[in-house]
């Protein structure tokens, strides 16, 4: 049994005291950094990269990977407590997580986030270990038409993110889609909507928009009421600060859904954890029996995106380790680290260096356990943050937001931008425009446009390429089904009204 032998070897490597130590340092730093908005895993991995140059590659990779998946655990904390996404994939977690906190259920929300992260993180590693090579081959079947279909599926989630008004959700998404077109057009090299600012040539950073609209918008909205007391109720007693049996039961399907969606989206080099979290949330809502309660603080609305986000790590490592292709910003830095250590990342990496691959896999099992042990006891503690009065907490959120966006690129321009988007976020709240569709449009917009234009270049302008390939066709059928749902309900409600009127 190949895998068993490999895993035994891997655990022998991962359980060496020094490797255990580096694994702990990695996941610990990762969680801390994940909690802080703006400071994402890729920035932290880059920060600690010089340190690992003195280490051996196995220990270095174990630590850097620890930061990567550790940051994903931490990302949900501020999303749930403060409505501030700690990293890009936690935007979706805000939707139900923050509502739970508002209702005094911050503890259970944080707990379920940690548990789903653990379950899905471990699931992702297991799949990485068991099916990496065939899954990598599957990922290669994704060309531009398949990416187009995936992005269409993602954008169709807007109908599931809408609040009271579908039109407002669509408008928010369109603004997001427009923001996504800002920058240099990939195909013609010409600028679009850059207003001759070189800072806008690479487009508007998604993190800037997310922090502006969610964090600063939230703070501004709360300035209109005098917030001198504590923010939200925090129940006493440990039992109320952790998820109960019913919460776990409610999230079991979300765990499975998120784990699977997260892994497979993660494997694709042209998609990422943000897409994974949106899609799994949408799927969860689409099949749920209490669909209408999503967005009001249901526990599976936290479990699904958090699971997807963490399972994505295992997926993203598949193309990196089996093909030498980085699938995301963070795995690109891991690839750089491998090169700097003098290894040759490529399809033969595992074959040439089995101890690295198996050591990494084993360390990820251990690291996920460490993260659960590290994070669960922190839950009651973090929940106490909400006892602080608003006048302490809100300025701190502003400070964290400014530091977060500035740390992206050390550009003051981004601080101005985040202020502007903060005002936009406040206005959207006031006028009941949902903010998640804006983010959805921004994240998927240029990916979809690129995919369409790439596809049509491949087919010399023949549109049928978009729907004639089987994988793409399947995903488009899903998309149609999701779009048809609310349309169908809408039409039938109109018919009912019309019948009432006639009667």
């Amino acid at each position, binding site marked *: 049994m190949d895998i068993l032998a490999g895993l035994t070897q891997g655990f022998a490597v991962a359980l060496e005291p020094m490797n255990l130590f580096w694994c702990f340092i990695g996941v610990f730093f990762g969680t801390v950094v994940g909690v802080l908005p703006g400071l994402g895993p890729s920035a932290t991995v880059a920060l600690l990269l010089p340190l690992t140059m003195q280490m051996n590659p196995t220990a270095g990779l174990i630590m850097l990977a620890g930061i990567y998946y550790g940051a994903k655990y931490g990302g949900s904390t501020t999303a749930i407590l403060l409505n501030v996404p700690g990293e890009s994939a936690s935007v979706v977690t805000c939707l139900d997580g923050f509502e739970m906190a508002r209702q005094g259920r911050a503890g259970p929300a944080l707990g379920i986030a940690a548990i789903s992260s653990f379950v899905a993180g471990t699931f992702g590693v297991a799949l990485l270990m068991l099916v990496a090579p065939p899954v990598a081959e599957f990922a290669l079947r994704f060309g531009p038409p398949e990416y187009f279909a995936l992005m269409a599926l993602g954008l169709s989630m807007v109908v599931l993110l809408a609040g009271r008004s579908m039109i407002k959700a669509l408008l928010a998404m369109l603004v997001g889609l*427009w923001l996504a077109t800002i920058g240099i057009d990939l195909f013609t090299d010409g600028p679009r909507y850059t207003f001759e600012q070189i800072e806008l040539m690479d487009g508007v950073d998604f993190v800037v928009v997310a922090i502006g609209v969610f964090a600063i918008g939230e703070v501004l909205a709360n300035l209109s009421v005098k917030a001198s007391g504590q923010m939200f109720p925090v129940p006493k007693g440990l039992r109320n600060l952790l998820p109960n049996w019913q919460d776990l039961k409610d999230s079991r399907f979300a765990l499975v859904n998120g784990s699977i969606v997260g892994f497979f989206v993660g494997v694709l080099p042209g998609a990422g954890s943000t897409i994974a979290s949106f899609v799994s949330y949408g799927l969860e809502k689409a099949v749920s029996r209490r669909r209408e309660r999503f967005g009001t603080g249901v526990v599976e609305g936290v479990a699904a995106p958090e699971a997807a986000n963490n399972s994505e790590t295992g997926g993203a490592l598949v193309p990196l380790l089996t093909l030498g292709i980085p699938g995301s910003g963070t795995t690109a830095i891991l690839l750089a680290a491998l090169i700097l250590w003098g290894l040759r990342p490529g399809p033969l990496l595992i074959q040439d260096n089995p101890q690295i691959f198996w050591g990494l896999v084993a360390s990820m099992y251990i690291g996920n356990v460490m993260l659960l042990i590290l994070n669960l006891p922190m839950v009651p503690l973090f929940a106490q943050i909400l006892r602080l009065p608003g006048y302490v907490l809100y300025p701190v959120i502003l400070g964290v937001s400014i530091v977060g966006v500035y740390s992206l690129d050390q550009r003051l321009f981004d601080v101005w931008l985040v202020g502007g988007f903060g005002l936009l976020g406040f206005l959207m709240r006031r006028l009941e425009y949902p903010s998640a569709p804006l983010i959805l449009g921004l994240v998927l917009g240029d990916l979809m446009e690129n995919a369409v234009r790439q596809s049509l*270049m491949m087919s010399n302008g023949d549109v049928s390429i978009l729907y004639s390939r089987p994988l793409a066709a399947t995903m488009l059928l899903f998309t149609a089904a999701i779009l048809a749902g609310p349309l169908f309900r809408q039409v039938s409600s109109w018919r009912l009204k019309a019948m009432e009127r006639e009667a």
Partner: protein
Amino acid sequence: MSFKLIDRSELVAAGLLVALGVFVAAQAWDWPYLTKDGPGPGFFPLWIGLLLAALSIALVALQARDAAAGRAPEKTDWRGTGRVLVGWLAVMAAAALLKPAGFVVSYVLLTAFLIRVVFRQRWTQAAAVSLGSAAAFWLLFVKLLKVRLPAGPWGF
């Protein structure tokens, strides 16, 4: 149709969105719409702009219908909105201060201002919270995490 009954801010928002849509579409008009291999750089923005404008108009129409059906708009809380605007201007002023004065000073001023003026707490509280949290920020981000924050002439 009874536009008078619609919330004024809803109308203004829709108007701004129509304007944005027209601007987006007008800009896109100058770029190639279709090339020999499918959509050009103008294709998507043009549709995004047109849809923005069209949907905003549709939104107003629907609201007018609802308003006619008797749903009264809520009263705007001008006092609260004023506080929000003051808070937002404070954030922007702090952003402007970042370059000449550095992060720590800008943040202390912003925090103290918000706590004292917007949240109407005592000076002592404003001073304690702003100085305390600024120190914590500096230790955590600059010293521990080595984030390169803008520094003033005094080095922080």
